[in-house]
């Protein structure tokens, strides 16, 4: 078999070839090219606004990956993911500010990295707690139980109790220099960008690997038909909870990462609307595809920012246009979901797959 070009048809001779990440030299080349763009071109060419947009894309991807896992791969509809992101963010913040870290860990800049791992675990466990009703309910009823996560976690526990730890202006203000990874103090969009890349790549790879394992196949089976999955011997409840844990874990990483971009944290950062937004992201990107979470995030952030910049010159003629842009943005969000549901129900990921196939077969497509 050619190691440069993948021939038409499937000529894999063993599972290793079949499951290889990069199956040909050409694909490897493409990925190296992408890495060059991500690691060299974007950070060194972009100004801080572009980098902050990239960071927002990364944050959206990390949030959307968890939602994709639950909705797209395991069929468990969630509208409370912002709560798990909040748990991650608050756990990490509290650990950094309040935990009596040994001095050498602080000196080596390990407090924040360790707090990220712990935040992810705690957010995962918290997510499992709200996944428990999935044993008994599904569909609309599950939507309501996951929404409860938002109200219980953010509006009650975090707002009323957690926010009071340490007194106002102490616990949740993150003074410059607090967020440190090894010798680097994370104090600019440039540094946050590299952290974002690291987390997005690690989470994407981990999720992709998980999905092609026994666990991933069990999730997909549950999504397609939970009764059939149970008949086949899959412990449906266990795997549903595992999905909630994994989604919460990634959500926790998203929250813990996001604090590196902030100087202060408050419950305002995690509104319920963000959970809804993340569901919109995967619907536009394509449910049931990791690419979907990435394309959806790119679409939702880049298109909205580009639209905003595009309407700016019109601001002179129509001064209220800039102020009303949020209305436009929300209308575009709603319209985009409607349009995708009608014209491209499989999302951008499917379109990407079609484009790839077109070029794979070019010039002899049929």
């Amino acid at each position, binding site marked *: 078999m050619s190691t440069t070009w993948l021939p038409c048809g499937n000529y894999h001779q063993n599972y290793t070839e079949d499951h290889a990440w990069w199956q040909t030299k050409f694909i490897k080349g493409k990925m190296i090219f992408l890495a060059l763009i991500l690691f060299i071109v974007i950070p060194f060419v972009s100004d801080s606004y572009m980098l902050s947009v990239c960071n927002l894309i990364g944050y959206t991807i990390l949030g959307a990956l968890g939602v994709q896992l639950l909705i797209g791969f395991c069929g468990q509809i969630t509208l409370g993911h912002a709560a798990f992101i909040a748990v991650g963010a608050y756990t990490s913040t509290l650990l950094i500010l309040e935990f009596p870290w040994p001095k050498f860990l602080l000196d080596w800049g390990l407090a924040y990295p360790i707090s990220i791992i712990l935040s992810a675990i705690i957010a995962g466990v918290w997510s499992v707690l709200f996944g428990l009703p999935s044993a008994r309910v599904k569909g609309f009823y599950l939507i309501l139980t996951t929404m409860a996560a938002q109200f219980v976690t953010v509006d009650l526990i975090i707002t009323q109790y957690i926010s009071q730890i340490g007194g106002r202006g102490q616990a949740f*203000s993150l003074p410059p220099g607090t967020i440190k990874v090894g010798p680097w103090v994370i104090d600019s969009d440039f540094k946050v960008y590299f952290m974002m890349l690291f987390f997005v790549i690690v989470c994407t790879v981990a999720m992709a690997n998980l999905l092609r394992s026994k666990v991933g196949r069990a999730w997909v089976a549950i999504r397609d038909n939970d009764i059939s999955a149970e008949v086949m011997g899959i412990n449906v409840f266990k795997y549903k909870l595992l999905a909630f844990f994994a989604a919460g874990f990634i959500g926790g990483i998203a929250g813990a990462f996001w604090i590196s971009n902030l100087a202060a944290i408050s419950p305002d950062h995690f509104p319920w609307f963000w959970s809804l937004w993340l569901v919109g992201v995967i619907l536009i990107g394509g449910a049931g595809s990791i690419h979907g979470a990435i394309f959806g995030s790119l679409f939702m952030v880049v298109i909205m920012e580009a639209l905003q910049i*595009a309407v700016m010159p019109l601001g002179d003629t129509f001064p209220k246009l800039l102020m009303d842009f949020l209305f436009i943005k929300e209308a575009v969000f709603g319209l985009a979901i409607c349009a995708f549901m009608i014209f491209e129900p499989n999302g951008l990921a499917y379109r990407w797959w079609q484009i790839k196939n077109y070029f794979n077969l070019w010039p002899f497509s049929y």
Partner: protein
Amino acid sequence: MFTKSMWSKLLTFIFAATLIIGFSSMAGAAVIKVGSLNDMTGATSDVGKDYALGIAEAIHYVNDTGGINGKKIKLYQFDYGYRIPEALTKYNLFKRLKCVAILGWGTGDTEALAPTVARDKMPYVSASYSGHLCKPEKTPYNLFFATDYSTQSRGLITAWYRKKWPTKPDYNKRKPRIAMCYMFASPFSSASIKAAKDQATMLGFEIGPDQDVSLFAIDTKSQILALKEFKPDVLLHTNTVMSVAATLRDSYALELGADNIIKCWGYDENLPKLAGKAAEGAIGCAPWAFFGLDVPLMDKVIEYAKKYNPGIPLEKRTIHTVQGWASALGLAEALKRADKVGDLSGPSILKNGFETMRGYEIGLGIAPATFTATDHRSQSEAKIYEYKNGKFSLIDSVDLRTEWPDKWANEWLGW
């Protein structure tokens, strides 16, 4: 007839053209660019809309009256819906657009951005008036044209103690009793509680149990019932108007019998509409004049409201429009002073603009503003109004700097 592909080509062309025009416009002409973050649709939009309209109208006024020494202000005004991630990217967009200063909004964006604006040396004139933002050592680039929350609370307590307490039957028989209603977890609501308690203790009040009232509260009966035993003479409210109105209504219905003193965001023209009879006699601190009152520049505020937003009836406009004007005019004055020395960088706007203001009179019923390199409390005077017989009247003015000069200078800065 247009075919499908022609339509898609046309749409693509329009989109691309708009983008190109948009990006190319970012290379600016000789104007001074100012960013404005507002909340028209989010959690604080009940008071945010009017503030945003006031900002836009005031900038039109500045431009119509000579701009910044002949240069026009180009205002980039965005609604961020009180969403902090949105505020962070908007801030970076303002930097990219080369805005020289920002008119910010609430506690959420102001606190999230405070260290960043200090690092970037970007003057940030907010509508969050927390006393915590007044210490230049900590937050050098955060400024506002208003009486800070702590001064407001001290002034309210003092004014009530002077004007109302002597009229009570128990005057000279016992200590006056005060209790405070606010959202514990909200940095905005709780910002001035420490100062309020300090002032109450200093004046010899007995302080009752604090009551946690959410900013979104519509029922506060349990909090009012909890206060019945303490029998407060006066309640201090530090939430926004919807929540304050709910507390006033319940306090009236349950016959608590206490007077009400209210911080600026809970005291506007909508309070009587929301609280009805319960608002009668409510005392509040308003650093600016209410919309339509006879004070310098109010004619312009009304004229520009009619001119630029004729669709909004004047009777629906509130004091928050005047607030927006105050922030915009204050910033414009700082820009004029900095521009005169030919340097519109952040440090110059701070040093040659704001920090040269000594008793600067904006008009609009605002006390004169003073900023120094060591103290960013622009005003020491709390203007106290009372709502009676359908109108707001000025009943007192407490100048903390004059009355407690030592404490003002040495103790009360930054909290």
